[in-house]
């Protein structure tokens, strides 16, 4: 049996940070990732923060990767953070940039496909120096302890003996469940996140969001776009794409099931958002059915090729950096020359092939994933024997108001786990007392853990101050606490103190309600909002079309087994599965696993595993 000092399960942002940190400490570790490549299974919103808490230090992304700011392919630094309350065509906006900047060095939008691949390069390079590295396409099946040895079993490779394991296998961690380290998370502890990637050329984005080349915007949405669920929408600017998504409390979705894609569609149909995603889209003309088959095929292929060329050329010509690069590389003499070529190509497309140019939006990828609410589900003992849990696998994430932070928390956890493991390796002691408890203690000291236990009163104050522009009498008193907090000076300071005393367990039922996310914003928009009109109606792809665009590597065996085909929960999955994998048969609910995107929504009442190595969904953007 081969031996490696440390095995890391899962190559998301948390697992990769653990590998990088352990390797930097001179320790040997191998990371096993189920996806065919690192970065194909991870999905986020997402804004990656670097923080400078007053209380104590955290390990930031640039502490782990020193060259992060100069070299990493993050999308844009977010410089504008705005909450939009919606009601039909009305929008009322509150600038929350101060809340975004709170205790932050920076927050940047990221696409995990691209970013995790970069993390991989850095971590892998460091790991090779100690005889470790990354092995993608390997699914860890279980961990067994025998004769004082720890053995990692996988679906693809021979068993591996190791001294310590870092489990970074995400919110649907099988390791946590199989080793008995924790129970599966319950719907009350989870949010369901659904997201689409929308393409938009860089220059158009800059202009539309009034941001510079080096700036970015994050928009949050509450009100009628939530379709009465607890949670909200987000729209983040990436370099030349937008991340548009919805994150809702799973309990709230179970109570009043809505199709996940409808929740995204509700956002897309909001006139303000329709306008933000708007673009020019080439549409194929009908091919004359009377032409010979060969000719029809020739035209079809030529059209595909032209649209591809035009789209690429347009993307480059509407991006300052790419434009300059193409001119530097001698592909074009000047920007005007590019424009001319585009215009002539466009004319040719229209005249020769009847391609029309319409106003619409371009969706590139659909995805979904559960998000653990650290307030409710962080593991208090994030270890079992010599296995340490980090990031989503440990249920650690900050979920306060519009704040969703899992990426930075997972990175901080990973650095702490790496230190604990390195220390254990130095003393050759992997016992609970020595390693597990040390790690737990270290996590307790993390300011992030504090944020998962109690609301930060300074943060709350900024938040409430931002809303002080809302006139006192604007919203009827029937909405209780939240509104009062926002609309009165005295109450604001009272609320801050109050929040501090109460702690989350008492505060949550007051704050995390439909009032906060739905009714108050809706009423604010109705009474104070400005009307926005959309200049077109977006053509929203059906769920079948969305699934058809995704890349899967089919596994004939199902990784999910339905255990209770007649339960109420399973019946709701017919609605709540984001890719409609469930349907009703006469014997109860059945699964068709082929379209599964491994979000975990159905995990509670199923025998749920990740697919074997390389199998299942492979995201391009993430």
């Amino acid at each position, binding site marked *: 049996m081969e031996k490696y000092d440390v095995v890391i399960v899962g190559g998301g942002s948390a697992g990769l940070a653990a590998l990088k940190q352990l390797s930097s400490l001179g320790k040997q570790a191998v990371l096993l990732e189920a996806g065919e490549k690192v970065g194909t299974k991870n999905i986020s919103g997402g804004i990656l923060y670097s923080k400078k808490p007053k209380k104590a230090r955290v390990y930031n992304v640039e502490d782990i990767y020193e060259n992060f700011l100069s070299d990493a392919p993050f999308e844009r630094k977010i410089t504008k953070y705005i909450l939009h309350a919606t009601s039909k065509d009305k929008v009322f906006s509150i600038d929350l940039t101060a809340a975004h900047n709170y205790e932050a060095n920076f927050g940047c939008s990221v696409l995990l496909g691209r970013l995790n691949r970069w993390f991989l390069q850095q971590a892998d390079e460091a790991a*090779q120096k100690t005889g470790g590295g990354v092995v993608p396409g390997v699914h860890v099946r279980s961990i067994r302890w025998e004769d004082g040895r720890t053995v990692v079993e996988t679906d*693809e*490779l*021979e068993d591996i003996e190791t001294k310590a394991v870092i489990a970074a296998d995400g919110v649907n961690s099988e390791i946590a469940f199989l080793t008995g380290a924790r129970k599966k998370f319950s719907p009350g502890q989870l949010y369901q996140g659904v997201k689409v990637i929308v393409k938009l050329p860089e220059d158009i984005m800059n202009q539309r969001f009034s941001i510079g080349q080096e700036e970015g915007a994050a928009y949050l949405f509450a009100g009628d776009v939530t379709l009465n669920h607890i949670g909200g929408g987000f729209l983040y600017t990436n370099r030349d794409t937008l991340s548009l998504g919805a994150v809702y409390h799973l309990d709230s979705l179970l109570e009043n099931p809505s199709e996940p894609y409808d929740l995204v569609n509700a956002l897309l149909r909001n006139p303000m958002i329709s306008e933000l995603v708007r673009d020019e889209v080439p549409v194929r003309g009908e091919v004359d059915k009377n032409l010979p088959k*060969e000719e029809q*095929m*020739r035209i079809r292929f030529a059209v595909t090729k032209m649209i591809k060329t035009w789209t690429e050329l347009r993307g480059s010509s509407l991006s300052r950096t790419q434009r300059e690069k193409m001119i530097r590389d001698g592909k074009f003499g000047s920007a005007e020359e590019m424009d001319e070529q585009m215009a002539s190509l466009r004319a040719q497309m229209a005249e020769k092939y009847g391609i029309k140019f319409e106003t619409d939006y371009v969706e590139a990828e659909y995805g979904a994933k559960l998000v653990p609410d650290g307030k409710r589900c962080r593991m208090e003992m994030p270890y079992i024997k010599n296995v340490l849990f980090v990031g989503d696998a440990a249920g650690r994430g900050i979920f306060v108001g519009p704040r969703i932070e899992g990426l930075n928390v997972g990175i901080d956890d990973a650095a702490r786990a790496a230190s604990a493991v390195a220390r254990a390796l130095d003393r050759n002691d992997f016992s609970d007392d020595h390693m597990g408890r040390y790690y737990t203690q270290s996590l307790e000291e993390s300011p992030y853990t504090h944020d998962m236990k109690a609301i930060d009163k300074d943060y709350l104050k900024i938040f409430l101050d931002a809303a002080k522009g809302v006139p006192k009498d604007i919203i009827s008193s029937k909405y209780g606490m939240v509104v009062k907090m926002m609309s009165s000076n005295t109450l604001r300071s009272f609320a801050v103190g109050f929040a501090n005393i109460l702690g989350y367990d008492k505060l949550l039922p007051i704050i995390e309600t439909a009032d906060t996310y739905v009714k108050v914003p809706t009423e604010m928009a109705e009474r104070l909002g400005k009307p926005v009109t959309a200049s077109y109606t977006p053509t929203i792809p059906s769920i079948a079309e969305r699934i058809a665009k995704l890349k899967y590597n089919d596994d004939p065996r199902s990784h999910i087994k339905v255990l209770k085909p007649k339960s109420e929960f399973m019946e709701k999955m017919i609605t709540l599965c984001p890719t409609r994998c469930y349907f009703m048969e006469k014997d109860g609910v059945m699964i068709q696993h082929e379209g599964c995107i491994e979000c975990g929504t159905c995990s509670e009442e199923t025998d749920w595993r990740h697919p074997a190595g390389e199998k299942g969904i492979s995201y391009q953007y993430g």
Partner: protein
Amino acid sequence: MVTTKIDKIAVLYLDMMAGFNVAVIVKLEPDFSEGNVSYNPDGTLNRAETKNILGPHSAIAVNAAFYAKVRHGAKISIGTMGPPTAESMLQQAQILSDADELFLYSDRIFAGADTLATAEVLKCGILKMGSKMDIVFSGHRASDGETGQTGPQTAWKLGMTFLGNVIEYEINEQERTVRAKRLVRLQGIYDVIEEIEAPLPVFIAIDPSYKARFSTVSQRLAYEKYQREAAARAQNFKQYLKIFNASQIEADPKMIGIAGSPTIVYKVERIPKGKATRQADVIDGQDAEQVAKAVSRIRQALSTMVIK
């Protein structure tokens, strides 16, 4: 005379010390994916406008060679006969296999070659690669109108043992043998797996279903290491590339090109559609009635079938 003989022995000896050598012969093929392929108005392929890539079967052969690199640190040499534009295809092959050397055999005189004349060029080319090959790999066949003859003919010309339809192989360096699983047809039964052992050197035509399997972490780490090396090498692939014409590979002009081709393609015809022997009812539409009709016909058909 004497000196050259000693030289040859010395070279042989050095080769043995240098470890394991494998060659792969690959083929440039049109990219048939939508958006890349172009057709002429008469429906024939527009070769000038269609992008050319490493053929899918060739890619599998290259993958098979890469297995020898990961497991045995083999030196890989890749050769192809083609126009000067085939360079970028060799680069693709290098990305897949971390090839140590790339050879392009390019000469106007090669034009019009059938499979036999092609095999002659490849034979001469392989002999010019400078190492004594332990294994030579070829794809199963090409996808743009070829017959799967080039591989076996090259093997025959090289005087190597030919193993076709190989789906898996293992090398035993000490014993200098190869163990291979072949997908064969036995007494009319398809897909029988035959396991054989052969002394090196051998010529392997790889089956399309071949997939390299690495079963330990260290093998997988070696795989990743060579992949990275391959990506780096392929950026400067020209450093690894040698271009040879007919005289440089010492090919006999009578054996190559049109002169060396006993066959010429006279005309390619579509396979005529067979006359349908069954009667078909067209059921068109999505309404309940049409669907019900389809279901009942399927039921009817199933009821007459004996499923064992």
